């Protein structure tokens, strides 16, 4: 099945986002996705998850006669397969360019760099040697297969144990794992590939491209390095024109990333992860505990669907709110509604938040209306729209807008994990998700109570906002007050 072509608008969107230094998943230019390495029950079996890209690797061994040109060395055989389950574009048994490239890169990264001591795999020189076969299967394609495959291969190789052998003259006895403990392979170093994708004729560079970014890339540069700052392989592909100066900073980057071994930053460099994982798994085995893929899959179960309702004292809400306002020190600058958005945002304490798409809220339909020249969107809040515009509409809409905005802030600050973005449509659900203390059944009783509802919300949420984000409650109230005319 042919891969669905990428639409032009999507391509333009991605390229423009890259020009503005933004990525789809919010990463920075040099950020890696989260790497998870899981080992299976057999020695030499490993699954690597790089974000959503999943790769399975299995290492096996066999006694074979050696190559004529190298009678004293073992054989390393790499095979990477693009399983059709990974992407609709992959067809089984089809020799595609990507497959060739991945296979060759894997071979060059691991075999030519001599990371495994092949001489130790020799049993009888010229007659019998161990052939180590590394099979990599791509299970899910979400970009950057090369890195995932190299991590999977090297971790599977370090995890693998080959059977012990005894040689008596010409007789070779292979012991089963029960008779004698299997022996690990001797690995000199661990080369790991890092992919850099180039965009817009080499002017922009991204590390660890995801699938969408890969589609619009101009070229790819794959560099394999190990912990000792040795470059094991460089491969540029895609026919981009690089300048020598562009290759150099890439080296610097890898150097920087290597130093992060000691720091726990978000840029997870695979080396320490690998080392600790393999030792961890070994420990698990020894302790006799359960191990393997089945155990490492997270159990996702919804344990609670209902939240407690708690009644809220609504008697003198207005007075309490006024008290809070009077008690706090008033700031001298209160922005009048007529001020331009840009000036306002330059010095205001408005919380800048990346907005979730608030469909239908806040954005004014401009079809058929005159385009307002100074209609500038406030920073990144997509759903916020332009408050200046909204104040032309009724108070109800304004309050709704404000209310959603506050909701968003509070939810985002506290309960990010509980509320999935994009579900902000249903206000009642959201209110239920907030702290048990604030439950507004007033909302159901129509618009007349909106103001009161807002006051309660203010009282409840300002304290929350203040405590979590470090803004004093006065400022947060300011923020609220500046938009609303009570």
């Amino acid at each position, binding site marked *: 099945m042919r891969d669905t072509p990428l639409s032009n608008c999507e391509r333009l969107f991605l390229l423009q986002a890259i020009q503005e230094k933004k990525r789809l998943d919010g990463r920075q230019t040099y950020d890696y996705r989260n790497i998870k390495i899981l080992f299976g029950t057999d020695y030499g079996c490993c699954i690597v998850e790089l974000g959503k890209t999943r790769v399975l690797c299995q290492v096996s061994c066999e006694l074979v006669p050696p190559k004529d040109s190298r009678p004293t060395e073992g054989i390393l055989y790499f095979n990477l397969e693009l399983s059709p389950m990974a992407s609709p574009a992959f067809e089984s048994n089809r020799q595609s360019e990507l497959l060739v490239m991945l296979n060759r890169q894997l071979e060059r990264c691991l075999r030519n*760099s001599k990371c495994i001591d092949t001489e130790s795999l020799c049993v009888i020189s010229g007659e019998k040697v161990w052939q180590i076969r590394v099979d990599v299967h791509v299970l899910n394609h979400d970009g950057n297969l090369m890195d995932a495959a190299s991590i999977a291969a090297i971790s599977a190789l370090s995890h693998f144990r080959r059977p012990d052998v005894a040689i008596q003259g010409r007789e070779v006895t292979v012991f089963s794992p029960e008779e004698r403990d299997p022996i690990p392979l001797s690995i000199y170093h661990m080369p790991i590939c890092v992919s850099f994708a180039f965009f817009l004729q080499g002017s922009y560079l991204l590390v660890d491209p995801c699938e969408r970014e890969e589609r619009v890339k101009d070229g790819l540069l794959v560099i394999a390095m190990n912990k000792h700052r040795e*470059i094991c392989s460089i491969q540029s592909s895609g026919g981009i*024109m690089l300048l020598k100066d562009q290759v150099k900073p890439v080296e610097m980057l890898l150097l920087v990333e290597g130093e992060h071994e000691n720091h726990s930053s978000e840029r997870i460099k695979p080396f320490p992860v690998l080392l600790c994982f393999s030792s961890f798994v070994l420990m698990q085995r020894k302790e006799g505990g359960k191990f393997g893929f089945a155990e490492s899959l997270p159990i996702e179960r919804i344990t609670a669907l209902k939240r407690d309702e708690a009644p809220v004292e609504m008697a003198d809400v207005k007075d309490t709110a006024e008290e809070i306002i009077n008690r706090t020190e008033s700031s001298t600058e209160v922005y009048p509604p007529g001020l331009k958005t840009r000036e306002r945002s330059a010095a205001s304490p408005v919380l800048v938040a990346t907005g979730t798409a608030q469909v239908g809220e806040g954005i004014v339909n401009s079809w058929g209306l005159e385009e307002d020249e100074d209609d500038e969107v406030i920073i990144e809040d997509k759903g916020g729209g332009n408050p200046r515009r909204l104040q032309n509409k009724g108070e109800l809409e304004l309050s709704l807008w404000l209310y959603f905005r506050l909701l968003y802030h509070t939810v985002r600050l506290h309960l990010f994990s509980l509320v999935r973005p994009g579900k902000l449509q249903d206000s009642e659900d959201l209110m239920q998700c907030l702290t048990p203390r604030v439950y507004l059944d007033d909302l159901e009783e129509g618009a007349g109570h909106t103001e009161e509802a807002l006051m309660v919300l203010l009282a409840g949420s300002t304290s929350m906002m203040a405590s979590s984000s470090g803004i004093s409650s006065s400022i947060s109230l300011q923020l609220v007050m500046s938009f609303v005319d009570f």
Partner: protein
Amino acid sequence: MAITELSALLKGMAGLELLSEQGYRLDGRKAGELRKLQARMSVFAQADGSAYLEQGNTKVLAVVYGPHETRGSRAKSLHDRAVINCQFSMATFSTAERKRRPHGDRKSSEMSLHLKQTFEAAVLTQLYPRSQIDIYVKILQADGSNYSACVNAATLALVDAGIPLRDYVCACTAGFVEDTALADLCHVEESGGGTALALALLPCSGNIALVQMDSRLHQDHLDKLMEAAAKACQDLSKVLDGVVRRHLEEVSDLTKH
């Protein structure tokens, strides 16, 4: 057989003497010297463009057909530019041991892919929408720097075919031995276990079309290696330019009379 035995023998000797104390390599060259390059263009009358290139002992034939209509599946043609189709193969007698599979194996497919990508970047494909340009390269004798020789030969063949290029595409290999960078490696030097970097460059702008390196190299040496390779490519471009001009002179002489 002779070359593998020789390399095995050399390995057995005390250190592989890729660079002697006087600064001479195995074939008597200095560190930055290129091998002798001889080339002829228009060797085949049938093809649109052809070239034969000898870089030391490495002998390569390149043939170009095109631009012509997309053969085979229509789906492969691109609406705004030409498709470049490359096929790389080694003659069975090209290496020391007879090659059992001249094309179709992974290494050949990879080489074909790299050639295709290199030339997709260099050829002005926008001038020929919905067309196809075929490049066939065959190695008659392999003595190191196979990829580089192929690129150089293919460049000459494209020039012979009259296909517009951004610039000459010059490729060269470079190696690293004891703090010295060697340019234009032969087979023994490549397979000796040291580093080998292959670089395809457009000499006027300095743009890199392809960079490829295997085997370990410490990060600090990369700069030196890249510079040596780039310089070798620049030297090569002058030689290739000379070949093209001489050929044009010959051809114009013939047509004059």
